[in-house]
């Protein structure tokens, strides 16, 4: 029996603000899971703390709502202990790129085969609109007493330098496109990152839906709004590293594209590189049966509750009469 979209929904009341971009991302995740027919019990959604952090409660898969900034370590630990499960980590921009920036960089170094989605609204939503790391320098959203004094971090470029092997950007009001990105991210072998532009109508009155749609940016000729969002794939951009030798050129291209902002904001896949071994593969290179016998499923005791681990070899080294 095929799984339906509704099979991925819980009956938990969703208390995001009306019009919040988070809804689109939630839908896209659920649609992607349904499209891929992932059995709900085989997937776990991990989240950090923030408005975005509530996401798992609305999805009927295992849902682990962790601590502010720590979603990646929690999720990586689970994935490494049970590589069979689908692990999707989600969280806010403050969560992932502010307090969590260190884990972000370190996760890139590991390349654990999983997905990380950032709900990028440029504000700390749940704490009432302070500037988040992606808010541009000098911007003053309505909740700020003064213009933002910090430079913004560039999540795409940061992911690239950190070592993420799949890097994409989505837009929360283009749900189908985002859903496809998520499916590709899940299919990717390695650590996949999706930065989702997510309007927060309550606190971010700059990067609004209307702004993304270019309502403030009307073509003087056609008098039509010029949408800022465009799709990389429609421009012939190819982010795939086909051969490791391309890396430098590819990286330069990613950096350049990731610096686009203001009038043109690309979405789609910026970068994909499957030439880097996953962390799981690196473990398997040391522990040959790691995939078949990962930590979560190892038998540790016999039917009489006696440990079956045999440390005689190690103890014999300690024997005094050796």
């Amino acid at each position, binding site marked *: 029996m095929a799984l339906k979209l509704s099979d991925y929904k819980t009956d938990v009341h969703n208390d995001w603000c009306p019009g919040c971009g988070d809804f689109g991302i939630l839908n896209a995740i659920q649609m992607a899971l349904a499209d891929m027919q992932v059995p709900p019990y085989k997937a776990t959604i991990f989240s950090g703390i923030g408005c975005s952090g509530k996401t798992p409660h609305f999805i009927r898969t295992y849902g682990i709502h962790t601590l502010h900034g720590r979603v990646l370590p929690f999720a990586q*630990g689970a994935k490494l202990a049970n590589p069979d499960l689908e692990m999707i980590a989600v969280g806010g921009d403050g969560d992932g790129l502010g307090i969590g920036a260190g884990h972000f960089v370190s996760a890139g170094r590991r390349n654990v085969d999983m997905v990380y989605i950032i709900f990028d609204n440029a504000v700390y939503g749940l704490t009432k609109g302070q500037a988040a790391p992606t808010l541009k320098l000098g911007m003053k959203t309505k909740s700020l007493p003064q213009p933002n004094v910090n430079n913004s971090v560039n999540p795409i470029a940061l992911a690239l330098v950190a070592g993420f092997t799949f890097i994409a950007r989505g837009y929360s009001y283009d749900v189908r496109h985002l859903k496809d990105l998520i499916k590709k991210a899940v299919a990717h072998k390695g650590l996949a990152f999706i930065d989702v532009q997510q309007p927060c109508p309550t606190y971010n009155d700059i990067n609004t839906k209307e702004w993304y749609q270019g309502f403030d940016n009307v073509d003087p000729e056609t008098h039509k709004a010029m949408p800022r969002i465009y799709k990389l794939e429609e421009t012939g951009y190819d982010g795939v590293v086909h051969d490791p030798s391309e890396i430098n050129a590819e990286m330069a291209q990613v950096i350049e594209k990731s610096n686009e902002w203001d009038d043109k904001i690309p979405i789609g896949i910026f970068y994909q590189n499957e030439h880097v071994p996953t962390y799981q593969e690196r473990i398997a290179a040391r522990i040959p049966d*790691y995939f078949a016998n990962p930590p*979560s499923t190892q038998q540790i005791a016999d039917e009489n509750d*006696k440990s*079956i681990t045999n440390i005689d070899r190690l103890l014999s080294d300690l024997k005094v009469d050796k």
Partner: protein
Amino acid sequence: MEKTTTNSLSWVIGGAQGSGVDSAANIFSRACAAGGLEIFGKREYYSNIKGEHSYFTVRVSDMPVHSHVDEINVLASFDAETIFRHFEDVTSGGAIIYDSDVVNTLLSEVPTVDDPAAVRIRKTLEKTGLALSVQGALDHAKRRGVILFPVPFFHLLQEFAQKANDPALSKLTRMVNVMALSASMAILDFDNEVFAKAIQFIFRAKKKVADLNVSAAAHVSNYAKAKFAGSDFLYRLKTKRTAQDMIIAQGSQSSALGKMVAGCRFQTYYPITPASDDSEFLEANEILDLDSPGKKGSTVVVQTEDEIAAIAMAIGSALTGARSATATSGPGFSLMAEALGWAGINEVPIVVSLYQRAGPSTGLPTRHEQGDLNFAINAGHGEFPRIVLASGDIEESFYDTIKVFNLADRYQMPVIHMLDKAIANSVTTCKNFDPKKIEIDRGSTVTQITDKDKGAAGNYLRFKLSDNPISPRVVLGTKDAIFWNTGDEHTEEGHITEDPELRVQMMNKRMNKLQVALREIPDEDKVVAYGSGDIVLVGWGSTKGAIIDAMEKLASEGVKIKFVQIRLMSPFPTDLLHSMLKGAKTVVDIEMNYSGQLGSLVRQHTGIEADYQIVKFNGRPMSLDEVYNAVKRIKNGDAPRRQVLKSGA
């Protein structure tokens, strides 16, 4: 001293970090153990990689030993600093083995002797009008009856090279450690063969190095036996048949071995002294033998970016059903406070091996203290259940490690296993570990979900409210058992709630587990009493060895005391302790910290205020003598309420 003292002595070897003090001490320890003797050894070193003074104390006896003493009977050295640091502690009739080439080294020429130490040494020498040099220090010792054994290491090395017809060997100054050791063995008249075997064993990974060291040792031994024949030195080590099934246990390995047996299959860590050894031993032995032949187990050890990630990853892993742990010391543990609470509210079994070292802050990172008790019990904002268990010695720590995983699973909460630098950096002979002694108890788990596990809405109830505060646990990936976790207060399904009634129920559920644990945990894991007497010493953790040994010494003088070792620090075993302290005339709090943390804890829970306090916080573990003397003073009625112990270099 006229009579020969056989098989009872305190031997110390010192030298710069990186110059092989450890290897020499390991050889010595192993040789003694292989010679049927009991040993207890401990290592002291600076937070430094090369050059600062480190030393290793080994006490040897016919009978089990659990602690070190302040006095040194044999000081084996091959540099100037070791003499300066320890000459005062060598007993009359004891020996100093030293490099005859360093006698003229001035105190001021040894830059690693830091100011405060230099001032003390200068004072001592000046008081007796002696030169501020190694010679002065040796003279000082000699005047007190210490017997001096100069050894011309460099010259012997050259001879050795000549004999072996390999001039390059004369440059192998790295071997002086074994040479100094060999000189000690010679004057102690230790069995050559057993000694050689021990050298071979320690260097077993490098056969050539081993052989070379054996030969060099023999060369020195011959020299020393010839040169020092007929000396007044009267200590001897006589080998015997080894007892069956004895091991020489390393404190840095016991917890790791326990983890293997416990079935811990996922450990995270961020490097920190003295906790890293635990993880590194697991990693170095990541492939595990199993009783089922042909099959292998394995431990995934992950070095994380910091301790926050370490505990978070371990929790993530624990959610999948793998027994999971992390190991750290004070600074790292401080960073784990927040996630500990997450594990608490989500009832995740997780083990934190907390290797205490001297704080606060970076403190004395390679030195010893029991300063984290209050913190371990209270770490993390808000209130959540946790178990804190403290091991008293290496052997205990092996079995306790298995137990803490059982406790974590059974009560579904974080368990902090308190160890410390004194345990981690000591070595002792003891009975071989029995991996079958402690059964594996994974607590209440479900793998097949039935309707009774589900709530009205058809969802599995991970945090089901019932008479039993322990709700059966499932792991991620179980069919039909989808649940949620959140750091927020939660419903039975694990969703966020702010309902005031449910909140109270969930708090009660979680905290009530502590009552169950307190009921079920066997007494011997709560509090253990040794001996009996009017004076009751209440202690915890690694002071156990010194206390046990001091008890014995006191008993031999007819002074009987009782020692109450608290093992379960939280939830606190109030009733049991009460019953054990009943009738005590004098209660003495003894611990390795400034404020007497255990003492406060005891008072907080039982209302009993210790009559005396024996504390130590100079970074060095308590010695047998210190405990002995402190108790003696109490016994004699001339002790202040608070005795601060200060021995140790």
